[in-house]
């Protein structure tokens, strides 16, 4: 396959640095009907790092994120071309086992969406699907996931209460815990803190920094400060184009594109 290096969208990190690539995106295009939502995106997503996707509303960053674990398949008019390579498998292909893919690449959504079940059953829902049924096996996984999501101490005495009785921030951490219980390799976070108050927001941010030791994280955020605090790399999208991707420090202090600078300094968006 011909890879066009040097086009304006070909933006890779400097090859000299020592890192592993978790996802390699090549010439990805996504369409909703006639609307070209993501245009020729090329990008390397580093393993065990936080990659932030920023840009104004409608720039394609969420669409891009949702294409990684094929959540766009739920939209009948969406289609995509190009490659997203994950362990040498092209995730864009038609022959992908989407169920297995989503187990390895988990997703947390903008609005906390716990199931209307108990805290415990929120975590065991997917485990039971994968045939783990005994309490003896489930209990340690529930505890471990809740600990990793920094929620255990707050809920350990009321695991069988409804998840809907939790605060918004706790619900979101429960959703993260529920995803962690599947032991994914990559976590996709779609504005996970945007619906939360500042304190819950800070807890989620601490959690994300903690989680990158074990997971590769891709996060969409509207909050520039959040991107600069928690991410290692930042990608800036505009109108479906990937304008610039670089180390987060570089993007926020010395971006090479004018559009990036305009956006970050708040001149539009």
């Amino acid at each position: 396959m011909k890879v066009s290096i040097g086009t304006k969208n070909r933006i890779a990190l400097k090859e000299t640095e020592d890192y592993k690539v978790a996802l390699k995106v090549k010439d990805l295009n996504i369409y909703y009907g006639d609307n070209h939502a993501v245009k020729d995106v090329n990008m390397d997503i580093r393993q065990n790092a936080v990659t932030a996707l920023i840009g104004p509303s409608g720039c394609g960053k969420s669409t891009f994120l949702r294409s990684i674990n094929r959540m766009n398949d739920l939209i009948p008019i969406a289609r995509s071309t190009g490659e997203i390579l994950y362990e040498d498998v092209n995730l864009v292909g038609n022959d992908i086992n989407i169920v297995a893919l989503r187990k390895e690449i988990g997703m947390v959504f903008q609005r906390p969406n716990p199931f209307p079940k108990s805290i415990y059953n929120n975590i065991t829902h997917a485990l039971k699907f994968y045939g783990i049924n005994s309490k003896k096996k489930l209990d340690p996984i529930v505890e471990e996931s809740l600990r990793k999501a920094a929620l255990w101490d707050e809920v350990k005495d009321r695991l069988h209460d409804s998840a809907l009785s939790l605060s918004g921030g706790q619900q979101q951490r429960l959703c993260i815990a529920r995803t962690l219980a599947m032991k994914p390799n990559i976590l996709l976070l779609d504005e996970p803190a945007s619906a939360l108050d500042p304190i819950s927001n800070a807890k989620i941010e601490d959690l994300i920094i903690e989680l990158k030791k074990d997971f590769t994280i891709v996060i969409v955020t509207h909050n520039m400060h959040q991107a600069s605090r928690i991410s290692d790399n930042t990608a800036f999208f505009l109108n479906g184009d990937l304008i610039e991707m670089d180390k987060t420090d570089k993007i926020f202090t010395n971006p090479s594109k004018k559009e990036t600078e305009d956006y970050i300094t708040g001149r539009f968006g």
Partner: protein
Amino acid sequence: MNSKVMDKIATAIFILIAIIITSVLFGLLGYIIYHGFSKLTLDFLTSPSSSFREGGGIGNQLFNSFYILFLTMLFTIPLGLGGGIYMAEYAKPGKITNIIRTCIEVLASLPSIVIGMFGLLMFVNLTGWGYSIIGGALALTVFNLPVMVRVCEDAIRSVPKDQKEASLALGITHWYTIRKVLLPSAFPSILTGAILASGRVFGEAAALLFTAGLTTPRLDFANWNPLDANSPLNIFRPAETLAVHIWAVNTQGLIPDVREVADGSSAVLIIAVLIFNLLARWIGSIVHKKITSSK
């Protein structure tokens, strides 16, 4: 005229309309129950009807009504649920889905007497069963199915989309998500819809005139072998339901106490439908509470 006065007038008109509707409803209910109340005795509810003497009851008709209702729901609920799941989750938007949807809507708006004639052709003549409980139940299934499909589809669609996404994003199949996330959340609405539909089926007469028939054989309530001709459970016997009975005694009754029997039957029918409606609300809210709070 200023907007404040307009607002007051509009409010008054709407309150007036509400009062008219409720008073018509209560007037009707009160009238029927007042006239039928004296007949509501255990004897009336359990004894068989008489064809020319005074003092017959509605025992068989009441049993027939519930039996046909039970069989109808037995056919309708699985089919309706299957159709609803298909329409809500699997049908891709497009021409074929639109055609199916139009068919369901047309079927839902068919006059029940037409369904009765269809039942006469299909379940009485073509099958050679004659007037039978099963024929009546199948005709009522045709009558009830579109409503049930609609109820199930709406109930499944009204489950927030993020619940479905949450489950799918965990690496769970569509079918497991439907079973463990969508259906439990939709269950209270499905149940409420099914009970309300039951009230409709229970009161239906026209679709049964030519399918379940206007007569009931002499039933032996000690004989529960469904294959015997005089067993109440036999599904191939003709069966006059309560709603049909009201129509029959009024139009062709030879008994001297036609008025009393009709009044009593109407009261029983309307009370039963009322109970179905109240049950629907009550059970619906209990199940909703039970499902949303844990365990």
